[in-house]
């Protein structure tokens, strides 16, 4: 087995390098489940409270699209499973993706793997250690989720079902990342590809849960919820997840054996000997166009998918008069509009993924030493940054408006109500203000210190927590108001508020200016 010589040593070194990262991901994921259990108990102290809440939630298609099919919502376990499992699955998927890419393609791309391989390390040791690492991480995650909920006092079987479905979901997407790492040449592209698969899995599940159910069965996230934790568990979807993860891993290893070191299954083609790039803006566009186009297409398709649910959301109400009354009393306004109000916010939050990544591309350029090549020419720092921010803004505007357009077109195709486009596109346009504000936060962080660009992701995580968990965490109103997505009215269900829009827009402008000042004062380094 000389192919695997050194696997253990590598695994130990991976664990050492990743210890804080693993602790963060697993801790955050466990907190999502555990806080849900504690929070549910706190807001609905009696069974009657829980029953009433369950009735209103079961009837709300927007909630279903966000969180998944509703089962046993009149129990704490059912509430935890419903509210946490999508977030948990996505977090597990992202953790696995970062772990896999970091130790495979990123190492190959940087040349560090070459150094490792030159020592006494078997041909398959790196990939074996990576697979073991992901198994271990998701195993610990599953055990921690199970343990924390059992510790809280929920039933063993339900807790295990919930933990195992999150862990296995992580393994499936870890295997997807392993395949991606074989077919593209850069870590960035590998993460992009895997991220797209996770996004598609999420959207398919969302559409499937409110509309054509078959779509849910195309998504691993859907399978993980089909385990029905705390609602008469069935175990075979877990086997489906495990089989898929195994098959993808085997496929990835086969691809690995067929390709050249640091290569991909196909060769690099030569390009033009003369440059068509004339400006720094042209360069940034060239670097980001694949990402802009990919995200725009993805967001448009996501919009069309949400839109094609049409008026079907009405059907989910069923015949229950009480639930309809409760929903209309609490949510207010038109049911379909409020569903689409939430859909627009979801699409806007997904757009933040592009926006923050795009802003932080500057950090990537700086660390790689590309920035200094440009800044050593006659391009001033401010112009270099402005070129990047321009592309970020263009991509954000294009992506989110296309999402709104898709939403309207999808809806119009199903309901023949073509005026919907004029309701949904302005709703998306309004949320542009929120997304650009998040981008501006990433920019200020980066402009302050290259490393602090991560503030952008902190802002996205915060807005996501406010959207999904504000109720259960009982966040005070002023904290929720810090999220622009919460501040701005949910068009088209609510009325436009000029004051709030100006406030969010002005904050963005202010942050961009502050970032400009900070950027012009600091050192350009390669750390």
């Amino acid at each position: 087995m000389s192919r695997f010589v050194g696997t253990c040593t590598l695994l130990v070194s991976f664990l050492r390098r990743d210890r804080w990262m693993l602790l963060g991901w697993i801790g955050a994921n466990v907190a999502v489940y555990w806080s849900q259990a504690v929070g549910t108990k706190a807001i609905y102290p009696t069974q009657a409270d829980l029953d009433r809440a369950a009735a209103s939630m079961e009837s709300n298609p927007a909630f279903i699209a966000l969180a998944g099919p509703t089962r046993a919502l009149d129990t704490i376990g059912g509430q935890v499973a419903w509210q946490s499992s999508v977030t948990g699955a996505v977090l597990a998927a992202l953790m696995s993706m970062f772990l896999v890419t970091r130790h495979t393609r990123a190492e190959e791309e940087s040349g560090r793997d070459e150094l490792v391989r030159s020592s006494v390390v078997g041909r398959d040791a790196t990939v074996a250690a990576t697979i073991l690492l992901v198994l271990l991480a998701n195993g610990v995650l599953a055990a921690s989720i199970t343990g924390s909920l059992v510790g809280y006092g929920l039933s063993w079987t339900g807790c295990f079902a919930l933990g195992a479905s999150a862990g296995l979901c992580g393994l499936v997407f870890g295997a997807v990342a392993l395949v991606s790492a074989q077919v593209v040449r850069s870590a960035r592209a590998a993460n992009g590809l895997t991220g797209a698969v996770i996004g598609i899995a999420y959207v398919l599940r969302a559409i499937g849960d409110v509309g054509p159910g078959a779509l849910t069965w195309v998504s691993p996230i859907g399978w993980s919820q089909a385990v029905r934790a705390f609602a008469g568990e069935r175990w075979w979807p877990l086997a489906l997840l495990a089989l898929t993860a195994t098959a993808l891993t085997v496929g990835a290893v086969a691809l690995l054996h067929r390709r050249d070191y640091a290569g991909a299954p196909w060769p690099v083609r030569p390009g033009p000997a003369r440059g068509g790039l004339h400006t720094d803006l042209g360069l940034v566009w060239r670097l980001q166009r694949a990402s802009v186009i990919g995200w725009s297409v993805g967001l448009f398709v996501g919009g069309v998918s949400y839109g094609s649910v049409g008026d079907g959301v009405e059907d989910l109400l069923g015949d229950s008069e009480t639930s309809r009354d409760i929903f209309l009393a609490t949510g207010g306004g038109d049911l379909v509009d409020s569903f689409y109000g939430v859909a627009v916010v979801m699409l806007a939050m997904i757009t933040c993924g592009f926006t923050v990544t795009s802003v932080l591309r500057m950090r990537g350029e700086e660390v790689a030493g590309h920035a200094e090549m440009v800044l050593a020419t006659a391009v001033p720092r401010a112009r270099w940054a402005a070129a990047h921010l321009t592309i970020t803004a263009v991509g954000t505007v294009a992506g989110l408006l296309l999402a709104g357009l898709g939403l309207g077109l999808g809806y119009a195709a199903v309901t023949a109500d073509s005026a919907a486009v004029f309701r949904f596109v302005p709703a998306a346009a309004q949320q542009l203000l929120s997304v650009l504000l998040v981008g501006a936060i990433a920019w200020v962080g980066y402009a302050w210190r290259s490393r602090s660009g991560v503030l952008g992701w902190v802002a996205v995580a915060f807005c996501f927590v406010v959207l999904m968990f504000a109720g259960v965490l009982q966040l005070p109103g002023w904290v929720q108001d810090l999220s622009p997505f919460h501040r701005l009215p949910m068009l088209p269900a609510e009325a436009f508020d000029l004051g709030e829009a100006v406030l969010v827009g002005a904050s963005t402008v202010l942050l961009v200016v502050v970032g400009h000042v900070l950027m012009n004062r600091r050192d350009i380094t390669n750390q």
Partner: protein
Amino acid sequence: MINGLRKTFGSFAALDGLDLEVDQSEVHGFLGPNGSGKSTTIRVLLGLLRADGGRVELLGGDPWSEAATLHRRLAYVPGDVSLWPSLTGGEVIDLLGRLRGGLDESRRAELIERFELDPSKRCSTYSKGNRQKVALVAALASDVELLLLDEPTSGLDPLMEEVFTECIDRFRGDGHAVLLSSHILAEVERLCDRVSIIRSGRTAESGTLAELRHLTRTAVAAELEAVPRDLSTLPGLHDLLVEGNRVRFDVDTDHLGEAIARLSAAGIVSLTSTPPTLEELFLRHYGERLEPGQEPA
């Protein structure tokens, strides 16, 4: 050009009172051990890093506040050239040239041919030496007055190194200046008019190679008719070794004349004197601790 430059990263003083001056039509060698602050100095000159103290003047301007304007008149080749993996070498050369304000087309073509560079390959497939060639072609094909080169030839093969040397000679011939950081002593000896050696963020020595040699010791071996008794009392004499009528010693170059006079008085049978090699010169400055009295004024 640079006077008493200081730059700290946290509590670490990367540059601690550095002085450096490069004249027109001069290739100035910039030498020092790894981590002595050469790249930091060049990055301050490029306005990428902000100086914490001292005075820095570049082409008559302030490299921090007038960075972009000054960059029209200079070109830079980093030691570790990192290029956009998805662009071709040709695209990068054209882009960097245009961003600087223009490229001499005929020189671009000539340089690509002389450096034997395939401009249609993607940068991800270039070796280190080829990436360096891309940056060198982009720098040398632009119309500038100053080149800032940070170990530009560390990845080049000897043939390409020769091409590089010729290009730099021609650039100097046009009346332009070069700051060349390098560890390749043959290259420094061949190209540089003056040299500055830095250690631990400050200038240890600066001058022409002849001047620097003057500061070091010459090795002398001689066979004498009779060895004078008081030879060891000569000023500036080191490592004296006497074997019968043969003597060997090192002498500070300043005191070479006196030493030879003394030997001559004793009757020289044979004499060899070896001037210090460049290697010895550098080893002395890289390796030894600077005595307080030895610091340059």
